């Protein structure tokens, strides 16, 4: 078995995300690599939530299959809605207390609520019962199930274990999932990968106002703030967020902020201020469908053009769009470091699929960037915040530094940071800021700004960015295509992209938006797209869905 997929579904409030994660951990302990897609509407109670947990022998999986090998139904809706995902071989395990009509004859019926009540548990513990039944049906040894459940349920552990055991005993083995001898690696979300990447690169403060799908970063960092000596602040608005971040940076604290499109709209004045003040700040933007409030809990790649140009006036910026947790970890650290090195805003542009997806994360895979030291004012001459210097980056100096007066200014200013409207000075300072661009481009060119996977010799390439790359890679492996994924979107690595496309005669672009924003960007750099696959229903492509669409446009 290369791959095994299990879907668990129920209502919001049933703890589907958590149950999916525990199943992922169990399969991970069985020696598999995991990817979990979690689908939920913006409801606290009711509605339909489901998670598809995929276990694979292959590393680097970042997409889900459409059809599933096992379906775990807490309610009737799960069976009805996902009927199309089942094959004759799919094992269905369902809650016989709530599924009556249309229960699959070949399925495994488990009275989850009855068992939970008999064991004196609360309703959410029905999940443990279902997980127990799943393990037995797929031949997962009880001791593995019990250890993971014990680790994941630090409260009421005994009760959960006895409920799970009842589930385990309630069904028969249908299938034997072979245990593999691969070492277990941690399961993390994209948001956690970003958080860890920022932390190891020396993050001092994280400032954020909640907005799905970025909130996971705020929650995770707030949780670990004590043990990592991090300051985590949730202020009154995104406007306050981006300005506070620059206050922190002015006083020498490496600071990141996180939001999604609507919050980012509010931040744009502050982004522009960072452009003029040259105060470093790292901004995570996790996309969801817009415009406006859009669809809060689903995915999109519709904000690329916005992020590339947000803020009035002209100023250089870094924009990085990682595809998976390994890249997210790596580029989050780099974003923080490069923002400080060049005193420009840096962006980590992700989406719901990556932010809230759960992945196996092998710590050995990404490069671990620590905190890069930056050149500071040496104190030999009077301090001038915006002193002209080679490459446009002035020596930085933080308050308080004896003997230095640090003047940062959002107005056009002279080298001392004093407001000016003198035309020569205005032009000089514009040029100073723009001078950073060549250095920034050279910097990212040295960092492999374009990912290449699939068959590097294929003459047809899929061009993609961000989380869609995970699915594109696997599709390319099946069909025999090349995948080219720019991780850096500003400054645009046009030369590296052309190199990556050498020998390609046909480019198919894949994006989760309606306008083909990367395709336009590539087009502006003389790279022409032959066919576009666009998706904008808030859902990421399953592997089979994208494979079919790629074949349709003629791979």
């Amino acid at each position, binding site marked *: 078995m290369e791959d095994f997929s299990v879907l668990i579904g129920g209502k919001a409030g049933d703890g589907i995300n958590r149950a999916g994660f525990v199943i992922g951990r169990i399969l991970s302990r069985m020696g598999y690599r995991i990817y979990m897609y979690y689908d939920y509407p913006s409801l606290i109670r009711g509605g339909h939530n489901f998670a598809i947990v995929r276990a694979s022998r292959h590393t680097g999986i970042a997409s889900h299959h459409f059809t599933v090998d096992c379906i775990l139904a807490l309610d009737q809706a799960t069976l009805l809605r996902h009927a199309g995902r089942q094959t004759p071989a799919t094992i269905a395990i369902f809650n016989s207390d709530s599924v009556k009509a249309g229960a699959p004859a070949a399925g495994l019926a488990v009275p989850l609520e009855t068992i939970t009540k008999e064991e004196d548990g609360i309703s959410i513990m029905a999940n443990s019962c279902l997980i127990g039944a799943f393990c037995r049906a797929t031949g997962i040894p009880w001791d593995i199930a019990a250890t993971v459940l014990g680790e994941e349920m630090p409260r009421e552990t005994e009760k959960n274990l006895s409920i799970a055991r009842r589930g385990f005993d309630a069904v028969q083995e249908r299938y034997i999932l072979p245990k593999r001898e691969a070492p277990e690696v*941690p399961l993390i979300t994209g948001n956690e990968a970003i958080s*860890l990447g920022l932390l190891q690169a020396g993050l001092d403060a994280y400032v954020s106002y909640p907005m799905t799908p970025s909130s996971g970063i705020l929650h995770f960092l707030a949780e670990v703030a004590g043990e990592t000596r991090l300051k985590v602040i949730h202020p009154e608005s995104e406007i306050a*967020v981006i300005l506070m971040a620059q*206050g922190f940076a002015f*006083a020498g604290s490496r600071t990141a902020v996180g939001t999604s499109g609507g919050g980012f709209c509010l931040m744009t004045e502050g982004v522009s201020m960072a452009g003029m003040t040259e105060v470093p700040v790292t901004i995570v933007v996790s996309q969801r469908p817009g415009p406006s409030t859009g669809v809060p809990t689903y995915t999109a790649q519709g904000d690329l053009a916005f992020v590339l140009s947000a803020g009035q006036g002209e100023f250089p910026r870094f924009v990085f769009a990682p595809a998976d947790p390994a890249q997210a970890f790596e580029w989050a650290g780099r974003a923080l470091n490069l923002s400080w090195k060049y005193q420009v805003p840096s962006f980590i542009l992700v989406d719901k699929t990556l932010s809230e997806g759960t992945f196996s*994360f092998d710590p050995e895979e990404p490069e671990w960037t*620590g905190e890069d030291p930056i050149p500071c004012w040496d104190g030999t001459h009077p301090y001038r915040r915006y002193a002209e210097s080679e490459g446009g980056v002035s020596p930085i100096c933080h308050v308080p530094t004896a003997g230095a007066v640090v003047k940062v*200014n959002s107005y056009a200013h002279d080298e001392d940071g004093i407001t000016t409207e003198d035309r020569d000075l205005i032009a000089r300072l514009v040029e100073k800021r723009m001078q950073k661009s060549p250095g920034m481009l050279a910097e990212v060119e040295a960092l492999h700004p374009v990912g290449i996977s699939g068959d590097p010799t294929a003459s047809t390439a899929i061009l993609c960015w961000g989380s869609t790359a995970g699915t594109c890679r696997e599709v390319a492996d099946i069909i025999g295509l090349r995948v080219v994924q720019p991780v850096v979107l500003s400054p645009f690595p046009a030369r590296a992209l052309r190199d990556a496309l050498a020998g390609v005669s046909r480019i198919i672009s894949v994006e989760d938006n309606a306008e083909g924003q990367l395709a336009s960007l590539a087009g502006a750099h003389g790279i022409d797209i032959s066919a576009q696959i666009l998706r904008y229903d808030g859902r990421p492509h399953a592997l089979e869905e994208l494979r079919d669409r790629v074949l349709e446009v003629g791979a």
Partner: protein
Amino acid sequence: MSRSLITEARNTWCPGCGNFAIEHALKTVIAARIEEGFPPEKFVLVTGIGCHAKIADYLDINSFYAIHGRTIPVATGIKLANPDLCVICCAGDGDCYAEGLDHLIFAAKRNIDLTMIVHNNRVYGLTTGQYTPTSPLHFKGRSTPGGTEEKPLNPPALMLASGATMVARAYTRKLDHLQAVIREGMEHPGFAFIDVLQICASFFNMTDYYNERVYTIKEHDSSDFWRAWQKVREWDYSADAPIALGTFYKSVEPVFNDKFRITRQPGEGREQAVRKLLERRIGR
């Protein structure tokens, strides 16, 4: 420390502008505190946008010349990054009572240790004479030629209601008092709010009006919230009434920034911390 505290930037305020008095008062207080041993590099001035904000160019101390309405979030970040700094905000009334109002209320609510000086000339100076949230009812400004149809805000009352731990009012033509209140604000642990009635020589010269009505409050118990509440409501920024100057309210309460007093050596232990967080994910 024999620094003049004044930069070489050319001053472009109108003759007679009340901003001169605020600059002078602030400079005098800072100089005195430096004289007493407070390190000059620990002062940080944050300004918004408007005539008032040019004070950042003129005072030779660390400054962050921010954007319209946003002094407080910048100042809050600075204070949280380093609670040892003395962070002063100079904001305009348009600046911080209109676009920046939410930040002002939150600064009071969280009792962040800042000194907030509002240059309240009750008009938009730099954009040449529109009404602000504290312009009197029927004020004829360039955007309201027929007179405003809104009553003004009463900022000290708003700040009391929002939880500010020091609420005061001063006047640019009472320089000694202004200085004393600014100093008191800097020494106050917590959010010190000072509404400074400022003359705008070009668009709203209230000199005679203020001169006739202002008085300094005496025998006032500033720890009594309800007394303070009555005092700040004596004059509603619109109708005629005596205008009290002084510290209406003061109390010492826990300050927000103290909770964030942690420091770390660069790079210290971070990689181990990250590895530990990851290991926990596999039950180790």
